[in-house]
């Protein structure tokens, strides 16, 4: 396959034709913040936190989706790049509850000196938590509108199309048709939207209940890898276990069978293992 030469932060790098700038950055181990990008989803380049400076371009370009071209000269840590990354993180954190994002995200906030409080008293996207089924909850006060759940529900994984982006501008939000509850929507409870959510806006009901009760403690959890017992596909499962109870099920993104995606049985059908719930 043809290779493309480019420079990133004055270092030469070879990238495969068709690769993105982000791929090339990773090859050089340049840590690039991303929020809406995930290796198993089509890039939507909406969060703009991965922007880099490309020589000859009037505006910054998103590393996650811009393809490499011969002779590109890219800066990933120029004042303009740092400024935009900082502002994106600040603006998000000033409108969304980002307390459950990964330690990586918290690290980027520190690295770029994000101070969300400097905007003063401003509008947020806070709204009541949606609990309308036994399997998962939706807390859109934590939603950064990265479109990942919509993609996972749509053509990138599940092809169910139960949710979409509704409204526009600051009021844009993830919604079912006419905002009906999940039981009245096309949702099949595969939970793949939870699997890709980077902020904890979508969460297992079991995790939500334990967090509310103050019993959620990741330091006491173990992860056991196994294969789903239901059908013959052989999806790899990671069982997150706390106090001898399964509290959450995931699958690794790089697993060749699942690409991180599961179905309702693999994701939620573990009650028979532990016989929780009402005693007979």
């Amino acid at each position, binding site marked *: 396959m043809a290779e493309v030469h480019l420079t990133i932060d004055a270092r030469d790098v070879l990238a495969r034709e068709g690769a993105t700038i982000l791929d090339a950055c990773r090859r050089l181990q340049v840590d690039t913040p991303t929020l809406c990008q995930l290796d198993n989803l089509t890039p939507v*380049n*909406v*969060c*703009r*936190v991965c*922007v880099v400076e490309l020589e000859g371009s009037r*505006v*910054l370009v*998103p590393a996650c*989706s*811009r393809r490499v071209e011969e002779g590109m000269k890219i800066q990933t840590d120029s004042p*303009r790049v740092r*400024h*935009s990354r900082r*502002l*994106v993180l600040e*603006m*998000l954190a*000033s*409108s969304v509850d980002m307390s459950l994002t990964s330690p990586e995200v918290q690290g980027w906030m520190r690295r770029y000196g994000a101070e969300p409080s*400097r*905007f*003063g008293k*401003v*509008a947020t996207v806070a709204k009541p938590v949606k609990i309308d089924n036994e399997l998962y909850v939706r807390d859109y006060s934590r939603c*950064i*509108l990265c479109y990942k759940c919509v993609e996972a529900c*749509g053509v990138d994984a599940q092809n169910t*199309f*139960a*949710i*979409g*982006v*509704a*409204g*526009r*501008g*600051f*009021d*844009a939000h993830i*919604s*079912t*048709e*006419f905002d009906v509850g999940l039981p009245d*929507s*096309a949702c099949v409870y595969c939970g793949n939207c939870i699997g890709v959510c980077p902020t904890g806006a979508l969460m297992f009901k079991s995790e939500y209940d334990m967090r509310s009760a103050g019993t959620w403690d990741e330091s006491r959890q173990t992860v056991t890898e196994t294969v789903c017992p239901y059908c013959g596909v052989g999806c790899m499962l990671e069982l997150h276990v706390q106090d001898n109870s399964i509290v959450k099920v995931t699958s690794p993104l790089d697993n060749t069978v699942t690409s991180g995606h599961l179905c309702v049985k693999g994701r939620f059908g573990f009650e028979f293992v532990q016989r929780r719930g009402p005693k007979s």
Partner: protein
Amino acid sequence: MDGLLGAPEPAHHHVAHGGRITRTQRHLLLPVLHAIQDRVGWVSRGALEYACRRLSIPPAEAYGVVSFYARFAHKPRGEVVVHVCDDIVCQLAGVDAPEGARRVPCLGLCDRAPAALTERFGPVYEAVQTAHPPFRYPGSKLLRRIGVVEPESIESYREHGGFAALKRALEMGPAAIIRAVTDAGLLGRGGAAFPTGRKWQSVADQPVRPHYLVCNADESEPGTFKDRVLLENDPFALVEGMAIAAFATGCEKGYVYVRDEYPLARQRVASAIKQAREHGYLDIDVEVRRGAGAYICGEETALFNSIEGKRGEPRNKPPFPVQVGLFGKPTLPNNVETLVNVLDIVNGEFGDTRLFCVSGHVLRPGVYEVAMGTPLRSLVELAGGLPPGRTMQAVLLGGAAGSFLTPDQIDVPLSFEGVRAIGATLGSGAVMVFDDTADMKQVLLRIARFFRDESCGQCVPCRVGTRRQEEILERMLASSNGDGRADVMLLSDIAQAMRDASICGLGQTAANAIASGLTQLKVLNG
């Protein structure tokens, strides 16, 4: 709905063809939503679900589309809805909104302010614009037929020299037409000023078929109404320009995307297309598509998404529309005024004039055609100057995405280079004049509100940035202590991130007017 789509496909047919026919109609979502709303005034869940079944669209996605466009209602309402413009120019003229009226951004009737649009839903849908009567538009080239030609008669258009350019173009052949457009140095008139000849050449060179021609008539920049005047009064000129463009670049299908707020323009263009087809002047199918109240759909890639029946969210570039545009095919998007300019180029009469929409505090607001490089002062004088006894406070050049000029900059030559030298842009040709009585704080706040309302919400810098910009501006202008330095700094930080990191031109320019207003005008206390 069935009137538009035809009778539903029989089930056995649907199965036999794998639902392919249904799926190819997905792009008809907006026309279908309009059909529903025109009849009953809103889009109910039942109607939307039927539409989804007919077009094979997931309901959640279709709901996303309905809730994106300001003109679609998803709650019941009366059979008459009044939209009253409360944008910059109408605000100067005094907004008088009756009870129950919706306040909306610029209706493109700034020369006749204050303006309103009344919709009557029912078996016969009606949309009526109300505003003062217009002034006659003097102009030697692009405007020469305005008020002279009968807009709905192809005979009248022919009597006034119509279709001479098309005849000549057919003799010249595609390569020579494109060369002529390139040599004339025509720059796009929609706001971005991209060289038209280069765009045409790129589309003509694309091996992928079909090529699409899209006329962008979604003129929604506040203070801009030149395309409306052309569409309403000389629609055949646009049709002729499109025929030439399609011939030169090998386009097999055309669209005219007209904003929903221009019912008369839409009707006249549709009638002109029909007549031109019947008389053999137009050999490709050209469809008139109706916007649904979204400024962002004037951005070319958002416009493509809208024609495809999706939310008007801009796409990331590259790839550019000339390679991957409407339905993923090479597409030529051109503004109305740009296409009308082509007639004179082909006829060898190109004079590089430009249409300006002068509004606000002048005696004769209207569209004026002047040579490139004409001083702003002459243009304002042409429009009758300011009312007696008033002095000029500022001019907003280029609409909400433009910038403010002060009276000492009034001699700037109106050319791309001339205004660039003072850090401004001609944009879409909007020239809003403010005299000493104008409350510039209100003007700035209206601009901030406009961008907050019109941001599509896709990317963070624009979605949150336009909101923060409005909030901070509000608190600065309300504050009386005079120490707004921290807030000025914040606004400039937000502006830079919006300019650098937004996906499209809306976000990239959403801070321009406010930044220039804060430095050029005396709006801060203390």
